[in-house]
């Protein structure tokens, strides 16, 4: 699974810390999310999508590996 958090964050002119504050997590969590080192919980994924006013499927893209 990969995500568009970095791209959307830049589009909305948000810093990592600002996004972290909006979804009530630590800045390191946002860093790990952007690097793909962490798969968020459903609740956190939903909160991040809400910040960008997008459905969750457009923020987190799941690709099935064959």
């Amino acid at each position: 699974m990969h995500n568009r958090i970095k791209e959307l964050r830049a589009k909305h002119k948000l810093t990592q810390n600002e996004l972290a504050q909006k979804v009530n997590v630590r800045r390191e969590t946002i860093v790990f999310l952007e690097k793909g080192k962490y798969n968020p919980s459903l609740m956190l994924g939903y909160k991040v999508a809400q910040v960008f006013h997008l459905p969750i499927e457009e923020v987190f893209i799941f690709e099935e590996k064959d």
Partner: protein
Amino acid sequence: MTLMLFISNFMLDLFNIKFKKMKKFYLPVFIITVILIVAGIWIYQTDSASESEAFRISEILHVGVIVLLFIFGLFFFIRRIISAQQGVPPEDELSKRITQKASSSAFYISLFLWLGIMYINNNRDVETDLLFGYGIMGMAIVFALSWLFHNFKGVSDA
């Protein structure tokens, strides 16, 4: 009687509120301070190298464990302060997952550590408290390294 009950309830509520706030922020500081004071008193009462023979290795290990605990406590305390200043929570789902992963990894590695210590105990003449000291220090170091590893590697379950 009613007045006394009212006053005691009021004091209890005040204590609970203060204690909850204290528990979240100041209690770790309090615990670290107590540990440091106890360690300081213990070190002061132990014979120093200049007066008689040098510290026994077991005493150095005991001090080492206390210093490690202090460093851990200080690290997490500073982290809490920085988080409070940035307006983010001190713990979130990622930090809890990292701690869980680090704990489980450290547990498995520590099993082998204690097997090694048992082997040393069976084959060499080493004091029991020294072995326990090595074991405890080893477990603390293993957990610290495990935490650092998972903190840098991440916890992707994909």
